[in-house]
């Protein structure tokens, strides 16, 4: 018999609700798996075993009493550590928030609990979600389960690794410029950056508010849709939340891409994209064509402006979001006191933030400064509008756009840590969806030298259904999501 940790979330739900397995048994199986591999993968910052066990028992009681059961009954979920969990420390992988105990749950966490999911713990990430490798975490680097010498991607590296290593059934990440899709691609899991506003950001510790969305990570499109169904929907506590009608996303999971029009921007395969990735992703597109879709190549001329615009907007917002961590109200407080605010604040911030966070705060502060605002921040907003318009136009012609998620293969831990520009360049294909606000999914598409490759499929605003259908069809045909790392 398959160990519970190898089951899909859907299978777990079925087994538990039918009484074929208890939530407690299932959870123990995951904890056994965690005990087996976590010391090598280091996906988690905090494991909440007691609370998880307690919840599993409660759920079993519900099953016994034949009460209504939630959509994720008994499914263990890993939560990125920038999502607030009541009384469970939420660190953003920063020394700044090493001991932060939120007094409330993020909206998505509430939704998970409402649907009877079990929260396993909090996963590692790049500090304040700034990075593509999980190397900037104050709590050490997470390893890629496919090859422990490699990075899992980032910033939601812990969540992707936990799912990939089967330490958790499903997981939540957040995606500001690719932070769900990049690790999904590097760890061969499925990951979605939803339409901006579909998932409430209430309880997500902000990096760049206008760009980011909380997104699901799973081993299959099935589970991904199930988790997305639970976390999406209107929430009045987030003013940017949209009142879209709630969807039963699982209904879109049909093996049917007949007549689907795929746009393939040549820029997605242009300079800087690894030739081996180009080949593999084209194979994926060809596969979709064989299944009934058609594709045509075209040019998205604004793509080349996306990365600088993204970094300026993201760091500008970050410089303001992170201002509250001054050691007086929030964050690390150094012992050295001073009579003067500025000195005290600077001291605390210098010691509480890691190098990458400080760098981005400086960059953002600079971009918003008088005399530079127009040429940097405002210009970036104009670029953003241009990109949006070009995407709108493209989606009039095509149902989806396809290309690689990442331009490069997973890299070795430490390999790019000093090559900032190369690291920033990694985001070139993912930041587009964040600038536009449209949904994008990364789905396993093959391997190069036993390292995973992901294909990115982007859809129009609120086009999650077509993404799910396309990804599902591709998954059923390619079967890459059946592969798992040997640990």
């Amino acid at each position: 018999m398959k160990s519970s940790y190898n089951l899909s979330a859907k299978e777990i739900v079925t087994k538990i609700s039918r009484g074929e397995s208890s939530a407690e048994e299932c959870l123990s199986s995951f904890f056994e798996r965690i005990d087996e591999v976590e010391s090598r993968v280091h996906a988690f910052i905090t494991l909440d075993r007691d609370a998880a066990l307690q919840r599993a028992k409660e759920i079993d009681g519900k099953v016994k009493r034949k009460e209504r059961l939630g959509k994720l009954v008994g499914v263990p979920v890993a939560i990125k550590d920038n999502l607030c969990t009541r009384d469970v420390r939420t660190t953003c992988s920063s020394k700044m928030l090493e001991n932060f105990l939120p007094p409330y749950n993020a909206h998505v966490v509430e939704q998970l609990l409402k649907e009877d999911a079990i929260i396993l713990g909090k996963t590692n990430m790049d500090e304040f979600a700034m990075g593509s490798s999980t190397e900037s975490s104050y709590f050490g680097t997470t390893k890629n389960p496919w090859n422990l010498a490699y990075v899992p991607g980032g910033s939601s590296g812990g969540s992707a690794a936990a799912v990939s290593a089967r330490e958790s059934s499903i997981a939540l990440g957040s995606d500001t410029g690719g932070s769900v899709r990049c690790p999904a691609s590097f760890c061969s899991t499925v990951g979605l950056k939803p339409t901006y506003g579909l998932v409430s950001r209430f309880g997500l510790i902000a990096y760049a508010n206008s760009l980011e969305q909380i997104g699901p990570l799973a081993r299959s499109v099935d589970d991904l849709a199930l988790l997305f169904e639970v976390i999406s929907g209107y929430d009045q506590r987030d003013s940017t939340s949209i009142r879209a009608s709630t969807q039963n996303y699982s209904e879109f999971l049909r093996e049917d891409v007949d007549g689907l029009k795929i746009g393939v921007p040549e820029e997605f395969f242009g300079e800087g994209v690894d030739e081996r990735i180009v080949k593999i992703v084209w194979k994926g597109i060809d596969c979709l064509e064989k299944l009934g879709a058609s594709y045509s190549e075209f040019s998205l001329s604004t793509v080349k402006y996306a990365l600088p615009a993204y970094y300026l907007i993201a760091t500008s917002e970050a410089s303001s979001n992170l201002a509250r961590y001054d050691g007086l109200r929030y964050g690390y407080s150094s012992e050295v006191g001073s009579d003067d605010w500025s000195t005290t604040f600077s001291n605390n911030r210098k010691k509480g933030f890691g190098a990458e966070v400080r760098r981005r705060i400086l960059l953002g502060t600079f971009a918003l400064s008088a005399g530079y605002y127009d040429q940097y921040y405002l210009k970036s907003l104009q670029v953003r509008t241009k990109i949006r318009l070009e995407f709108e136009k493209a989606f009039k012609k095509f149902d989806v756009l396809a290309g690689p998620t990442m331009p490069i293969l997973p890299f070795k831990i430490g390999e790019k840590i000093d090559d900032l520009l190369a690291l920033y360049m990694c985001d070139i294909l993912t930041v587009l969806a964040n600038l536009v606000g449209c949904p994008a999914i990364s789905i396993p598409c093959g391997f190069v030298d036993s390292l995973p490759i992901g294909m990115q499929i982007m859809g129009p605003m609120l086009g999650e259904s077509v993404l799910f259908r396309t990804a599902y069809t591709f998954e059923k045909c390619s079967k890459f999501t059946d592969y798992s790392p040997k640990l």
Partner: protein
Amino acid sequence: MSKKITSVVVFSKEEFAEDVVIGLEVHCQLTNLRTKLFCGCSSEYRGEQPNTHLCPICLGMPGSLPVANRKSVDDAMMVALALKSEIAERSLFFRKNYYYPDMPKNFQITQYDQAGGIPIASGGEVSIQVNHENKQIRIRRIQLEEDPAKLVHLGSIDTSPYTLVDYNRAGIALLEIITEPDLKSSKEARVFLQKLRSILEHLGVSDGKLEGAMRCDANISIKKGNRVEIKNISSFKEVEKALNFEIARQRAMNSRGLKVEMETRHWDDVKRVTISLRTKEAEHDYRYFPEPDLVPVEISKEKIAKISQIIPELPDARLDRFVKLYKIPSYDAGVLTSDKAMADFFEECIKLYPDAKTISNWMMTDLLRWLHEKDIEIKEAKVTPQHLVEMIKLIDDGTISGKIAKSVLPEILNTGKTPSEIVTEKGLLRIASRKDIELLADRVLIENPKAVQDAAVDEKAIHYLIGQLMKLTKGKADPQLANQIIKEKLKKQSKSN
């Protein structure tokens, strides 16, 4: 250096010097809202324990998000319409970034008119009356923002050994009303603020009389010199003092040939001086940018039409009505309507006693003078319209004299007792019996033989004797009767001589 100068400044009463230019930034709390601007915390923080009206949102706790209070937008629209400002169809919230303990997030959510920002309303004007002349003060813009926390010092900010922070006030809805530099004197500034406060009170959006509910910053320059901003003026009573000080300081600088620096100064209401906070070079760069957690405020034409229908009568209209309906002088009507409570008091009185002129006279003279002397508002005084009317009726029916009434009024204001109670307690009933007055008059004549003698040739002596009679009766004698009786008795005496 500035401190040295301040110590030798002599206060002078500044009156409408042509070279003075003043602009105000008035911060008015929307006190009719029950909650803060972006969270559900109660806005009634006055008199509460410090740091008890808080939640993750107004504390800027990581992961929390602001949600704009819809009613604050309605309030802002009402004010905009009252000030004839143009309401923006779509306005934006911006972040104003600065490191200071008064904002939990180290930024303030406000609105802005530059860097692509659009405030909720722009333009407009307020008419004021100074020295019987009308003047229009232009409004530059109106914006919604959150109030910072209250910083508490022990005595003066300069010498306090600590700063305490009370976040109860952080996040309270503020309307910032910015004027053009149209004000010419500290008095105009005060009158403007008084008028503005009255408008807000008539709208029912802000009770400017609550402590700290109406605060302002002032920009002031003299003789086209550098502009100095004065912060922390906590009430419109303080504004006159702060501006007078600053005008005197700048004049003293000029007369010594010293240059007035472009700077920001702090009004220290304990030491009653302005203190330099920072110079131009050290000015904050607030790095304004659009607040990404809030959506634009959209206001439709229909919504504006709906709000305009619920705008109540405003001070200017009320003034006109007072003049037309009650036939009181325009100046008096202006004074009465410059304070909603005062105007309400007036009209309450008229309901009980229809002679508006008499009511207005009593209010404009004795009542106002007393309030000014005590430096309090009519709401704080213990007098009610019933009191004033009862007092006037006592004069009418001859129970007390007008002169006695003047001594009864302060007693009412101080104690809240009814006029009858006071009259009885103090034995102030008028002596109207001819017999009683005649007896007392005889005594006066006997005690003042010299005056009686002079009375035959000197009119003044007669008045002296009447005065003595009034004094003897502590003013309670009917003055006409007293006059008559003294004259009669003198006539009699001169005949008998």
